[in-house]
């Protein structure tokens, strides 16, 4: 074997070793993140928001001095257990496909006599949205471990799924970003954050099934509506209207793709 061959082989061996070390490093980092989340899950502060949300659900309020306990989230008035895992879905009384937050606003309006406008317009850290986030934490927590089963049967549900798919792939804004830019390929990552592949069942489950979630870095409980709002912000898109069809369509797309998996709500994030 000549000198050049020996040199090349040595280089390849070193490269292979370096690659192996890099790969091992990535695995170790990911394991560290998962271990951190597992440890925090034991005392997930989301439970505090679930407790607040439950109080809000049961406490009479609004001009009609009624509680939300008669609210029909899809399984009959007042049924909370497992309801979130079936949303978004079509509701005959509003003739609309609704997600949790839009459905809560409907019930606040009809049962309690509240005007939904202040809730739609408030910033996510203002008291009206804090109420919504707490309610979302409670309702979604009641679906923990339930199978995700958002199945588009009604024509409006099917139309909403298709709209969600189109929106997911719609490129626009100053960077020509779409949802698919980050969540449209397998195996991508931003810094240490793995990016779920939303068109696939596994990625959609990771994305849809873990929100609402408590964000450790900011000490806030985020609903899916808040998360979607932040996606629009990162894409430099105009801010979506809270509980608009645009946001519900994206939720429908994710929920249907995730069907069959198990809800892990409320989650815990970085």
């Amino acid at each position: 074997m000549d000198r050049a061959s020996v040199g090349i082989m040595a280089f390849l061996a070193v490269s292979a070793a370096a690659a192996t070390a890099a790969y091992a490093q990535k695995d170790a980092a990911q394991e560290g993140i998962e271990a951190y989340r597992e440890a925090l899950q034991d005392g997930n502060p989301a439970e505090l928001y679930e407790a607040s949300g439950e109080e809000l659900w049961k406490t009479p309020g609004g001009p009609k001095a009624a509680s939300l306990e008669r609210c029909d989230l899809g399984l009959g008035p007042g049924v909370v257990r497992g309801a979130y895992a079936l949303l978004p879905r079509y509701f005959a009384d509003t003739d609309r496909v609704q997600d949790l937050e839009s459905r809560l606003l409907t019930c606040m309006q009809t049962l309690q006599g509240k005007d939904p406008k202040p809730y739609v317009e408030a910033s996510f850290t203002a008291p009206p949205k804090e109420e919504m986030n707490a309610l979302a934490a409670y309702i979604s927590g009641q679906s923990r471990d339930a199978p995700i089963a958002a199945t588009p049967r009604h024509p409006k549900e099917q139309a909403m799924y298709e709209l969600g798919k189109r929106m997911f792939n719609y490129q626009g804004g100053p960077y020509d970003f779409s949802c698919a830019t980050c969540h449209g390929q397998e195996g991508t990552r931003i810094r240490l954050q793995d990016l779920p592949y939303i068109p696939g069942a596994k990625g959609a489950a990771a994305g849809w099934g873990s929100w609402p979630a408590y964000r450790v870095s900011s000490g806030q409980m985020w609903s899916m509506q808040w998360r979607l709002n932040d996606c629009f912000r990162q894409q430099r898109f105009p801010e979506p209207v809270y509980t608009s069809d645009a946001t519900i369509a994206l939720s429908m797309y994710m929920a249907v793709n995730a069907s069959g998996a198990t809800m892990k709500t409320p989650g815990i994030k970085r």
Partner: protein
Amino acid sequence: MGSPMKIRASVKEGVTEIKVLMGHEMETGQRKDANGAVIPAWFINEVTAKLDGKTVMQAQWGPSISKNPYLAFKVKGGKAGDKVSVTWVDNKGDTRTDEATVT
């Protein structure tokens, strides 16, 4: 009045483990708001835990503890059915007590 705590207590082989999740802002007094004004300090400074009426833990806390504190500790003794109560007092004089049953 504060928001409700989540308390979990379970006994195993004569040792009771108590886990408490408290909802509190735990503001350090060093942060500033959007206008540059210092946000006043606001944090829990006393925590007391009782097992069947007997004090088993007392803590003096300061602003270094972060938001929504999680506290876990073990005590010898205790049995299923005992009552655990936890009380916190913050530097503004607000206080909260919650109870749970050992399982």
